[in-house]
């Protein structure tokens, strides 16, 4: 058996009195796309933060490719695509500037770009089909293009694990299909991808497996099975289910 790309074991996290993760365990094998499903406050963001080592768990362990997260980070193995609301889209940076930030871990003290860095950035931009938009200010991209710009940053970085927080929020159907295709390509090249999403109907096309999260991992399996209404009811409460049927 190969070493899992992501191994979260019995991780518990409290924020003061509030319990965010309760002995959550999750293993994702290399080159798989795993969808993380749960309501707001179910611990999805916390799980991301634990994997990135931004939050230290009160208990439990995290291994990235068999290594502690800090080591995986220093090697540039972890790429992160933030939620749209977390980004200042007015920030005076071009698409190329943002993608170049993926190379910083490979660069020296002043982060001066080498020829190899520029080549890696160009390649990543072509890969996500943003080559023609490289000079644009990041706010002047469409919703889907913005996401792809950040995916390109992860590609330029050489990330073997990619974490995407709500990649389909504010993205139209066509861009959603483009992003799905892109992520599937990356996975077939060996990248392991963890996606948190509210967008349940997009999951089966995108993901190899899905996880229901409610402070702990309620269920982990093929998307079709995890997305069964009775299972969703567990994670979201019956309310959502009824509303969905009514709609």
């Amino acid at each position, binding site marked *: 058996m190969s070493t899992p790309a992501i191994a979260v074991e019995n991780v518990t996290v409290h924020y003061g009195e509030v319990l965010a993760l309760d002995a959550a365990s999750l293993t994702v094998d290399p080159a798989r796309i795993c969808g993380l499903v749960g309501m707001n406050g179910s611990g999805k963001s916390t799980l991301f933060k634990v994997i990135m080592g931004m939050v230290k768990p009160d208990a439990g362990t995290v291994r990235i490719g068999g290594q502690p997260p*800090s080591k995986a*980070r220093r090697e540039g193995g972890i790429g992160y695509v933030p939620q749209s609301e977390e980004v200042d889209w007015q920030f*005076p940076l071009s698409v190329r500037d943002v993608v170049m*930030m993926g190379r*910083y*871990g490979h660069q020296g003290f*002043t982060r001066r770009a080498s020829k190899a860095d520029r080549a890696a950035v160009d390649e990543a931009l072509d890969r996500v089909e943003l080559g023609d938009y490289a000079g644009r200010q990041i706010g002047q991209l469409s919703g889907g293009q913005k996401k792809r710009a950040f995916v390109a940053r992860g590609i330029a*970085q050489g990330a073997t694990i990619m974490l995407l927080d709500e990649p389909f929020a504010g993205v139209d159907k066509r861009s959603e299909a483009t992003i799905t295709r892109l992520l599937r390509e990356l996975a077939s090249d060996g990248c392991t991808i963890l996606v948190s999403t509210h967008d349940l109907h997009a999951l089966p096309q995108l993901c190899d497996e899905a996880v229901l999260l409610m402070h702990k991992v309620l269920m982990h399996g093929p998307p079709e099975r995890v997305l069964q209404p009775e299972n969703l009811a567990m994670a979201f409460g019956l309310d959502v289910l009824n509303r969905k049927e009514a709609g």
Partner: protein
Amino acid sequence: MELLLEPLSYDFMVRAIVTTALAAVVCAVLSCWLVLIGWSLMGDAVSHAVLPGVVLAYIVGAPFALGALVFALIAVTLIGVVRNTSRVKEDAAIGIVFSSLFALGLVLISVTPSQTDLNHIIFGNLLGVSIPDLIQVLVLGVVAFAILILKRRDLTLYAFDPTHAHAIGLSPQRLGALLLGLLALTSVVALQTVGVVLVVAMLIIPGATAYLLTDRFSRMLVIAPVVSAVCSIAGIYLSYYLDTASGAMVVLTQGVVFAVVYLFSPRQGLIGTRLAKARRRKAAALAAA
């Protein structure tokens, strides 16, 4: 020409111009990050809170920068403590801490003999810059400037996306601390010229002006210091000929230039964008006809 050269025949004017231009450049470079992170209030706070540190340093004969750094650190720590351990929100915490420390500085000045010297710290004393003052500003300014420029890419990454900084193994905490330290250092540089009360203007206005003029951070880092240096020198000349307070005149000039850019910037300006729109409409109408 005569008008430009005449003031330069006085040594004190030359020193004033050199000091101000230097402080203006360092402050302007730093301001690019401050306005983008949303740390303007923090700049205000730190530049005021260093006052007791500077006074204490003066009393014991230590370098001003040392006292300023210590009190900048104290201010930031206290702000964090008040915010995190009570229901008081951050802006209130900042207001409480910096005004109290500033007041402490004023009290210390009032009980320290040789008050005149220290009063200059509050409103600046551009025309009374001595040679040692100039050397201190020069050394601190060059150090702060060099660090800012060498680490500019990391600082921009920190401002734009600290999570990514963390994800690639950098420490956002350390970068934030570096920026705060540089803020304290820069405050000391600017104290000499415009004084504690007006430092914040030098720490915000140039960055904000440049931000309205370009969509590229690398260009902001050129525009802000150039605009700031030109404004500062213009301000000194104006104060010389109008016989007004020099520090205040420097800040006023910067404010006026910001207002002009705010109104007429082709991309972001209030009137500039409307003019551009009208031109486009006219062109479209002509093309249609």
